[in-house]
């Protein structure tokens, strides 16, 4: 079934081809069948807000397709993007479990398919299915690891240049590019959004990219960035 946003909607988790690759989704059939009964499959366009920081938790959002920007905001409007959630991640998990407000805002950056589960249904599901409960523990552990990484990066990096270098190295280590001499990455975010990820201004990010290109550390072709000098980038990152 096609959605209005060009997505092919996967109706059933049991027949999803990507199930085995995803921590939460790779459940025994009995648990997955129970999950099928409580989920609502929905398609969202790019730019849709799934939930807002500070809202009471309605439930979890399992990201099946597309990517979602996770951010926090200060009272004077400054935004920090914590991460880009990838398919397979369960969003709003800790808030749904604890009952505390959502800690982050989730906004789609691609057309997305999301499976929503209401809070009370999800908590009952976890009580009844130990395997699912363990998967949730694993997902939360991964998120905690990422959060600690953010604390380290934001609190201990000397400069915006160092943070940008770290971010580019992290992105370039994904999707099988880690071992390449000159890895490449698709820049899915604007300079403003990258600035929001590393806690600096758009102007600083633009200036830093220009410097990196001038020093031939990176080269861009359209939205693809090639890391020409990984060693120099590592030096900048303080590695």
């Amino acid at each position, binding site marked *: 079934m096609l959605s209005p946003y060009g997505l092919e909607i996967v109706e059933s988790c049991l027949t999803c081809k990507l199930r085995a690759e995803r921590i939460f989704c790779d459940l025994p059939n009995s648990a997955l069948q129970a999950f099928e009964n409580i989920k609502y499959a929905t398609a969202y366009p790019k730019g849709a807000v799934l939930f807002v920081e500070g809202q009471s938790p309605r439930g979890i959002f399992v990201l099946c397709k597309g990517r979602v920007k996770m951010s*926090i*905001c*200060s009272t004077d409007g*400054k935004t*920090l993007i*914590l991460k880009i959630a990838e398919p397979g991640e369960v969003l709003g*998990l*800790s*808030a749904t*479990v*604890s009952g*505390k407000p959502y*800690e*982050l805002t989730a906004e789609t950056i691609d057309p997305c398919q999301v499976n929503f589960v209401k809070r009370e249904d999800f908590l009952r599901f*976890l*009580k009844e299915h*130990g395997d699912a*409960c*363990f998967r*949730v*523990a*694993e997902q*939360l*552990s*991964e*998120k*905690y*690891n990422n*959060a*600690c*990484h*953010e*604390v*380290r990066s*934001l*609190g*201990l*990096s000397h400069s915006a240049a160092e943070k940008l270098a770290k971010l580019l190295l992290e992105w370039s280590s994904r999707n099988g590019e880690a071992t390449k001499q000159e890895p490449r990455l698709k820049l899915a975010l604007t300079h403003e959004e990258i600035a929001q990820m590393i*806690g*600096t201004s758009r102007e600083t990010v633009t200036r830093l990219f220009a410097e990196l290109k001038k020093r031939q550390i990176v080269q861009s072709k359209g939205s693809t960035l090639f890391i020409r000098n990984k060693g120099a980038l590592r030096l900048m990152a*303080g*590695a």
Partner: protein
Amino acid sequence: MLMESAIQLSCFDCALRPARVFCDLPADALEAFDAIKTIALYPRGTTLFNEGRPARGVFMLCDGRAKLTVCSGNGRRLTLRIAGPGEMLGLSAAVSGTPYEVTAEMLDNSQVAFVRRKDMLHFLRVHRDACLQVVHLLSQDLHTAYDRVRAIGLVRTRHPAAAKEAI
């Protein structure tokens, strides 16, 4: 703070058990936990585990406090938070099999219960109630970590000293 002679070997004898998220388990789960834990008294200043080391297991703070810190490549250290009695340290690393994300150092002379990773994972798979408690604990840890990210990451200033103060 416990005196050395007052070490508590069994969770069943602990008067603080009902007040603690993880410890308030059904009797069968608590008995199983008693069987897999080892108790030790650690003096102030002891490092329970170091950031980046493989996760050997989890450490339950029966009493006392521990400082959790992260470190940069050039040795600068930042305190994430102070963990208190009833908290389980090293939990996310043990569950996910990744290295410890922080360094934990004792701030008080304290009793700590250690459970090896392999035993903890088996325990969680067998005892659903305990697994649910662990999920609650991890959620709390995550909330605290996000608060820290908010505090550090959203102080944008030309004056690094002011940013450090906010930290």
